[in-house]
């Protein structure tokens, strides 16, 4: 390590590590140098010149955001020369700025306004016409849509290049660029391709003026009328910190709340723009109870009484075993704990599971392995990523930024093993294509090489890529094996896991199995994970056989999620009593005897546990516009009261206090630190290697059959995100991807409507023809509930065969 550097700024000495920029060194002394284009997370461009300072012995003023410190530097940030230059820069920035602050979204939170207030001229010497970019003469504002969500007002742009750098260096895309020169320089999307990458909303948040706007927020409210609720995003397991900004019960936007350990101030567009799910038009705000064949809205107490009477009877007759409950991996830790506690201790039933989207539940050993090996920030230090059965860019977008950083800045290698190609922005990656289900086989090829064993000839792989992985692993690079969503629904999960564990050992790698849902780790560790014998699949069987007569569903939507739609529909209809806690009247809720409107963020408070095991607090908004919505613990608490057991919980904090008392190592929960705390959830013993016994690979049934696979996108994940108008505006429609050879044989052309069917059921989607998928396989992307894909699945088989026919 090189020695620290000592320098003087405004007469004060400061010691900083070499490479520190002057602006950062000043910050340490509490001296704020005004900046526009500087952002410590982006490469300096030194373009706005707002941060000019004087360095003794240097002839010109220097940009403090682009100049590293040097020993014995003497810097002046406030002398007359600096102030003159700074005022000059501000005046220059303002001459062609429209100063339409009264109608600009950024008003009130605008760095240009704030710095003009602090340093700027009060009157203008500029008497000329301002340069104006007129986009549409019939429009009131000079707004130019760059894509479905992002809108640009070029008049306001001060050319700080932050948006361009966010797109190019952070997201690794190439959709925004600079056009023209001189005073006519402007930002635009390249080739008129709609700008809608996964991180586009960050350009709006970090634009220092109101040049970039979100369609969902534009002209809707003044910033100072918004109140903020500290929150955590619930749409993926990274758990980005954010503020939910609301007024009069309506959520207007999500803004990042920078947590350097987790998100570093970035949000993906799913998390940022999914805020309107909260106020969706068909959101459920009233309980419903069934009268005859219809579900009718009712008061909260009325619904409570119906459910409580039913439960009282069951308890009195000691029939708790006839009751089952299933939660969802998006519930809070407190809800999970409350559900477990209520059904275990009050109802006395073991029939509890935490998710309904799997027919083959994960074994307890696997649950203890799920999560990130190490901290999120460690990702940027890995040098080789072997990403297998996962698409982290879609499943954990903001954490993937660190993989992109490692690849783009540190030249790390990202190698994707999967049956269809993935991308990491435009950063260089390698895709090793394998047949469906061959993840374990591919990993074994690598492990065999590392042990100098002969390769088997079960599959053929890209030798060059294998050589590279072998070489890197032998060189002792920091290898990180990452599995994800496809691991959980893999046809040979045990074999896949064993193969990963073997490679982990041989390559001395880290191994992470990342869950796709937000609080998978919290919900499973805080109570809802039981054992395989009481999985949702088993619960359904017991409903089918009449052993279970009452089912509580909290937050999940089995009719749309369970991989066998017909079976789940038929079975749920056999229940005597179905209670569903849901944010929407979805197909599962429609079957219920009683429906409670589910609280969504920020209706309530609590904690989530993210992929690294960080437990993070989210708070409710201080208004409670939706009087009847409750989190699971709110409903169960009141039921307990009504069945004369006394109300158990009034507040999420009480549940945390209880967990703090009851669970080892959880005492901190009673006093949640603001940046959360890391809870060591991963079991080390489960990492022991085990014999690898791979199942034979699934074969195509006949030449017209396809093995069906599923992929989501950042903007669309299923029945919940479907409720967001914002996300649906950005997201593409559903499509089925098939290989050109298959398409030619089956007479299917690009963009043709096709039916995808098994022997009984079919859905209609659009065909896309691409070599990114294998022959004999079909990839359904962006599945919508209108064409439910689980119609085609059967719980008896983890492989779905379909035929695809043009209409």
């Amino acid at each position, binding site marked *: 390590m090189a020695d620290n550097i000592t320098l003087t700024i405004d007469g004060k000495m400061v010691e900083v590590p070499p490479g520190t920029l002057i602006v950062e060194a000043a910050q340490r002394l509490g001296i704020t140098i005004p900046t526009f284009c500087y952002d410590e997370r982006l490469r300096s*461009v030194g373009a706005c010149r707002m941060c000019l300072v004087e360095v003794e012995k240097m*002839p010109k003023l220097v940009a403090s955001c682009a*100049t590293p410190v040097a020993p014995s530097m003497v810097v002046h940030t406030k002398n007359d020369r600096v102030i003159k230059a700074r005022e000059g*820069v501000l005046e*220059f920035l303002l001459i*062609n700025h429209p100063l339409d602050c009264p109608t600009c979204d950024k008003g009130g939170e605008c760095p240009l306004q704030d710095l003009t207030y602090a340093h700027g001229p009060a009157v203008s010497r500029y008497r000329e016409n301002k340069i104006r970019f007129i986009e549409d003469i019939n429009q009131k504002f000079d707004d130019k849509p760059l894509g479905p969500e992002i809108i640009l007002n070029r008049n306001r742009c001060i050319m700080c290049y932050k948006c361009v750098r966010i797109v190019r260096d952070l997201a690794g895309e190439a959709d925004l660029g600079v056009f023209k020169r001189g*005073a006519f320089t402007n930002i635009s999307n390249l080739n008129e391709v709609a700008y809608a990458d996964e991180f586009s909303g960050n350009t709006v948040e970090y634009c220092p003026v109101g040049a970039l706007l979100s369609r969902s927020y534009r002209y809707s409210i003044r910033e100072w009328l918004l109140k903020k609720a500290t929150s955590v995003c619930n749409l993926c397991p990274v758990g980005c910190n954010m503020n939910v900004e609301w007024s009069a019960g309506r959520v207007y936007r999500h803004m990042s709340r920078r947590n350097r350990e987790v998100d570093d101030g970035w949000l993906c567009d799913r998390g940022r723009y999914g805020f309107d799910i909260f106020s969706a038009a068909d959101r459920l705000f009233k309980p419903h109870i069934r009268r005859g064949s219809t579900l009718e809205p009712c008061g909260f107490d009325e619904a409570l009484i119906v459910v409580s009477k039913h439960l009282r009877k069951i308890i009195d007759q000691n029939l708790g075993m006839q009751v089952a409950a299933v939660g969802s991996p998006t519930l809070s830790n407190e809800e999970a704990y409350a559900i477990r506690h209520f059904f275990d201790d009050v109802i006395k039933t073991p029939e509890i599971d935490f998710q309904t989207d799997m027919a083959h539940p994960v074994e307890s050993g696997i649950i203890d392995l799920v999560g990130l090996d190490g901290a999120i920030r460690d990702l940027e230090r890995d040098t080789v990523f072997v990403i297998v059965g996962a698409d982290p860019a879609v499943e954990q977008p903001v954490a993937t930024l660190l993989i992109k950083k490692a690849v783009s800045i540190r030249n790390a290698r990202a190698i994707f093993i999967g049956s269809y190609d993935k991308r990491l922005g435009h950063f260089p990656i390698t895709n090793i294509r394998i047949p469906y289900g061959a993840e374990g086989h591919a990993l074994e090829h690598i492990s065999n090489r590392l042990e100098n064993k002969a390769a088997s000839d079960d599959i053929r792989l890209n030798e060059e890529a294998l050589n590279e992985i072998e070489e890197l692993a032998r060189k002792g690079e920091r290898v990180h094996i990452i599995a994800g969503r496809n691991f959980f629904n893999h046809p040979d999960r045990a074999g896949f896991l064993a193969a990963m564990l073997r490679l982990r050992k041989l390559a001395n790698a880290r191994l992470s199995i990342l869950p796709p849902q937000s609080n998978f780790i919290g919900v499973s560790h805080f109570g809802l994970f039981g054992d395989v014998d009481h999985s949702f699949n088993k619960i359904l069987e017991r409903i089918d056989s009449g052993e279970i007569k009452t089912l509580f569903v909290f937050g999940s939507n089995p009719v749309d999620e369970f991989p066998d739609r017909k079976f789940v529909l038929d079975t749920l209809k056999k229940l005597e009593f179905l209670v569903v806690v849901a944010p929407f009247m979805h197909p599962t809720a429609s079957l219920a005897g009683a429906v409670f409107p589910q609280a969504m963020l920020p209706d309530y408070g609590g904690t989530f546990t993210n992929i690294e095991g960080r437990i993070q607090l989210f708070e409710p908004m201080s208004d409670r516009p939706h009087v009847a919505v409750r989190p699971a613990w709110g409903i169960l608490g009141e039921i307990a009261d009504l069945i004369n057991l006394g109300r158990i919980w009034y507040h999420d904090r009480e549940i945390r206090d209880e967990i703090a008392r009851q669970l080892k190592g959880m005492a901190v929960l009673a006093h949640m630190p603001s940046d959360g705390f890391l809870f060591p959830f991963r079991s080390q013993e489960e990492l022991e290697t085990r014999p690898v016994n791979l199942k034979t690979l699934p074969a195509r049934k006949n030449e017209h059959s396809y093995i069906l696979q599923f992929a989501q996108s950042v903007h669309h994940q299923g029945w919940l995100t479907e409720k967001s108008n914002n996300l649906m505006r950005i997201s593409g429609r559903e499509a089925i991807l098939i290989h050109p050879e298959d398409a030619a044989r089956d007479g299917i052309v690009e963009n043709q409507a096709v039916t995808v069917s098994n022997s009984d059921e079919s859905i209609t989607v659009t065909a896309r023809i691409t070599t990114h998928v294998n022959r004999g396989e079909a990839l359904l992307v962006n599945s919508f509930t209108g064409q439910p894909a689980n119609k085609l699945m059967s719980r008896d088989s983890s492989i779905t065969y379909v035929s695809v026919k043009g209409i």
Partner: protein
Amino acid sequence: MAEFEKILFKYIDFPEQDRIDTYMKNGGYAAFRKAVTTMTPEEVTDVVIKSGLRGRGGAGFPAGRKWSFLPKGTGKPVYLTVNADESEPGTFKDRELMEKDPHMVIEGTLIAAYAIKCKIAFIYIRGEFTFAARQLTRAIEEARAKGFVGKNISGKGIDIDIVVHRGGGAYICGEETALLTSLEGGMGYPRVKPPFPAVAGLYGCPTIINNVETLANLPHIINRGAEWFASIGTPKSTGTKIFCLSGHINKPGNYELPMGVPLREVLYDYGGGIKDGHNLKAVIPGGSSVPVLTADKIDVHMDFESLAEAGSMLGSAGVIVIDETMCMVRAALNLAQFYQHESCGQCTPCRQGTYWMLVILNRIEHGEGRMEDLDTLLDICDNIEGNTICPLGDAAVPSVRSTIKQFRDEYEYHITNKACLPGTTAPRFE
């Protein structure tokens, strides 16, 4: 008019000087051969340092000293980039060298490449210079056929290749870091310095950028020695300089003269005096980016130091002659237009400042000026100068500032009378 020996232009109009055989008959490639066979790269650098040769691209930085800034032992390749983007208004010397004596440029490039141990040199040439680009490309092929370019030159294990890259015709791409960005395939945006190109230039590797004329001097320095070169010109501005004469002058064109020659001699002895018998009003002595000199200052000597002392600069030695019929407001407007158009737009003071100056000048020229505009213009100049990423911003200032300072009466007349000073009408540059 003292007699002296031309160096760069000695054979400029010699028949077929652009062919390698003629060039070699006239002594060409002897210097390069001498360098690679009898001198180490360090010795070549040393000779160049001793010769006092200063960059001819505008800034006048000592060439040998620049080379010696290259960091040693980085393990990265070193690049040489020849700046042939010549776009400074009033400057057309590199073009003549490249078109008529391309081998001299190539030989100079080879010597510099040898001195800095560069294996691939790039010539970044202004897009409009089609003929010059063709001449250079052909010269490189001829030199390759003779074994001066390519692998294992002179059997000494030296590899040097030269690539001609044609620019898009943007003035800013003559600025050395914008040139590098453009060469890499990016938009011609200058980079913040430090790091200087010698440390992190093309593709992040140590890179030397030199002007065409600078390099063209090298064969002669190697052939005839540092002392000989240093004896020409003035002690601090050694050698000869090609002056590009344009404007209201009887004999416009390129003149190679020793550094330190009096401006009066350049104008009257070589340039043949002011056109149409008019009186001289002003001279811009170093390309459009330097302050104008009034007619009474023409006894100044044309070297870096003397011109600086006189309040201007040698710059690229584009001598623009302005006679009494020229409206100085119109002249300033003309140049302001150029700088506004050529500003890359990356940094605020240049992007907005050049535009603001242009609109004000336009207003004044069209009879809508206000007296306070003049102070505003001067203040804009102050706010641009020194505060930008690259020197283009600084270059846009002198024409405006110096014309206001020295011809304020013409501006005031314009503002008050909404017309040009009688007798000064429109620019007549042809």
